[in-house]
């Protein structure tokens, strides 16, 4: 990379080619001529690990395989129901059955697509000036320290409705996270009111799409129970006429539908019940698993965000105002707009030396960290180039959200995030046993992320590992009790 930079200064044509390569991952290949005239949309330079479709209108997580499985399951089961069971039921019972089924099906699909495709409430990363301003403030608060001394965790305390809440600093996004926000390690974004990352929906569930997610699982529970009940009714009515075995032979699809519905209904209804409880107490899955507002933590511990009664909490969650997306996916990148440094554009478990070097540039205290600072001079030189290209580099390693930097607190939070979505995987896995294929994809990101995070953690505080194990056990116990 350093070699290219030298060439870039002397030979402008090479520099053009260098620019072309570095935008390869995020936008289609442009010739150097058209590139100068065509301005990019912001989704093309988005630093998180999301995928965008329809020119930025649709936003999803990187791994969408399980989402397609969800779609296939719902479409196939409903399709079979409408094709094979509904004609019989409509003629023998009432045509209202397919009508209601149709309405439920449309609602389920609408909510699923809305939950999957919308921005969950991603917080854009800090501009360089903001990040520098925050650094200055943190240095002023913490004071100077000698070499070899690890600075204390970057936190701010805020009093919300009488409860002390700690705001943590996100090293990837370079912001102090608002209360209830969390960094999703899969998508590499901070998300407001982060609930969890749902692989079935193929997106994070946060402030902007929580109500769609909840309505999706609620309506899916009704649809599953509806299909289950009426398929059984159909088979019973048929077997009254022609006998059980011939009834099954006449509508073989019913068997498949019953099996799918039977295995899904337990976890979907269970999940709806769990989320109804969360909504009524105005908590996120994140907070519930960590036990943030549990009375077991302390006598005066209560949820400062709850409105007091469960009706107001429900109304606020489902019928409250819908905030707009903060990331402006389809806007154009202006040449003079400050762009935050894009950290992730590839995969792999490379050590996060880029961020470390950047941090070292702004904070001399970091020189004591035992990390290779080879990327340092390259990063400095790049920042002098104008335009969006300077924020992307050809082989940026993908950075885990738990940058092994300065705070055990930040690590714990990031590690907990991966725990949370892993628990979600476990929760879902026990009903997908008839279909073997999904388990490897869901288990794999779980395992890689745990493996990914544990290694850097081992460089630092081993005490945090014990508390994490405790928390993960607590989390598993909590989920199994649902």
């Amino acid at each position, binding site marked *: 990379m350093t070699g290219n930079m030298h060439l870039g200064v002397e030979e402008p044509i090479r520099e053009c080619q260098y620019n072309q390569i570095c935008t390869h991952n995020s936008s289609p290949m442009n010739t150097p001529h058209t590139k100068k005239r065509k301005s990019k949309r912001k989704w093309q330079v988005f630093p998180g690990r999301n995928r965008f479709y329809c020119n930025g209108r649709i936003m999803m997580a990187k791994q969408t395989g399980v989402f397609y499985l969800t779609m296939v399951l719902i479409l196939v089961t409903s399709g079979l129901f409408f094709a094979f069971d509904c004609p019989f039921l409509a003629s023998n019972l009432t045509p209202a059955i397919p009508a209601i089924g149709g309405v439920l099906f*449309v*609602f389920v699909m*609408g*909510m699923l697509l*809305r939950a999957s495709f919308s921005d969950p409430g991603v*917080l*854009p990363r*800090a*501009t360089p*000036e*903001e990040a520098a*301003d925050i650094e*200055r*403030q943190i240095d*002023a*608060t913490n004071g100077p320290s000698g070499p070899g001394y690890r600075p204390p965790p970057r936190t*701010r305390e*805020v*009093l*919300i*409705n009488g409860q002390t*809440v700690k*705001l943590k600093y996100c090293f990837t996004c370079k*912001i*102090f996270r*608002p*209360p*209830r926000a969390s960094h999703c390690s899969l998508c590499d974004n901070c998300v*407001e*009111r982060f609930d969890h990352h749902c692989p079935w929906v193929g997106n994070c569930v946060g402030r902007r799409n929580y109500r*769609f997610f909840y*309505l999706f699982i609620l309506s899916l529970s009704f649809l599953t129970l509806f299909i289950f009940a009426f398929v059984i009714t159909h088979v019973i009515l048929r077997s009254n006429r022609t006998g059980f075995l011939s009834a099954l032979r006449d509508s073989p699809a019913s068997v498949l539908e019953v099996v799918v519905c039977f295995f899904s209904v337990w976890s979907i209804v269970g999940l709806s019940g769990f989320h109804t409880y969360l909504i009524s107490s105005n908590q996120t899955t994140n907070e519930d698993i960590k036990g943030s507002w549990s009375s077991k933590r302390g006598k005066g511990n209560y949820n*400062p*965000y709850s409105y007091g009664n469960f009706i*107001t909490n429900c*109304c*606020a969650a*489902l*019928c*409250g*105002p*819908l*905030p*707009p997306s*903060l*990331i402006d996916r389809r806007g154009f990148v202006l040449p003079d707009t400050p762009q935050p440094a894009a950290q992730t554009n590839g995969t792999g478990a490379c050590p996060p030396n880029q961020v470390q070097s950047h941090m070292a540039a702004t904070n001399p205290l970091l020189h004591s960290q035992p990390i290779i600072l080879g990327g340092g001079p390259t990063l400095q030189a790049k920042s002098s180039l104008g335009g969006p290209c300077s924020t992307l580099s050809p082989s940026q390693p993908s950075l885990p959200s738990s940058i092994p930097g300065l705070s055990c607190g930040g690590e714990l939070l990031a590690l907990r995030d991966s725990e949370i979505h892993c628990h979600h995987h476990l929760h879902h896995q026990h009903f997908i046993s008839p279909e073997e294929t999904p388990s490897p994809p869901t288990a794999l990101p779980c395992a890689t992320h745990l493996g990914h995070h544990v290694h850097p953690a081992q460089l630092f505080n081993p005490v945090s590992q014990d508390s994490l194990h405790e928390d993960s056990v607590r989390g598993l116990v909590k989920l199994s009790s649902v």
Partner: protein
Amino acid sequence: MATEFHNLQELRHSASLANKVFIQRDYTDGTICKFQTKFPSELDSRIERTLFEDTVKTLNNYYAEAEKIGGQSYLEGCLACLTVYLIFLCIETRYEKVLKKISRYIQEQNEKIYAPRGLLITDPLERGMRVIEISVYEDRGSSGSSSGSSTTSSSGR
């Protein structure tokens, strides 16, 4: 005051950016959007305290109106739910309407109050609703250095 600008265009062309002041969020009332009204020391010599506080308080009121949970928001929510949220393809949400009002207000404040004093407010929506960014400009002709950036205002208490 050395810097006197009559409109935003003049400001952008003849001044150079000296410093940026960030007004952080105030989370004491929960997660609603509210900014701290504490007057930053860097603006001490540039603008009167009351004008600044008025601007921030008006912005806070606008955001509170956008995020208010009451009859109108329930009606909007229920109607949207019944139409599978397709209604938002046709009409604007209340939040979006208020954001447009805010953007007009900021534009007006910039033109009337801040630009003549060599300052420029950036809409918080462009900064992810995290900060109100106030750019401090210095006249290119003047030899004055940037206004005190070494003093740090305490934040988020």
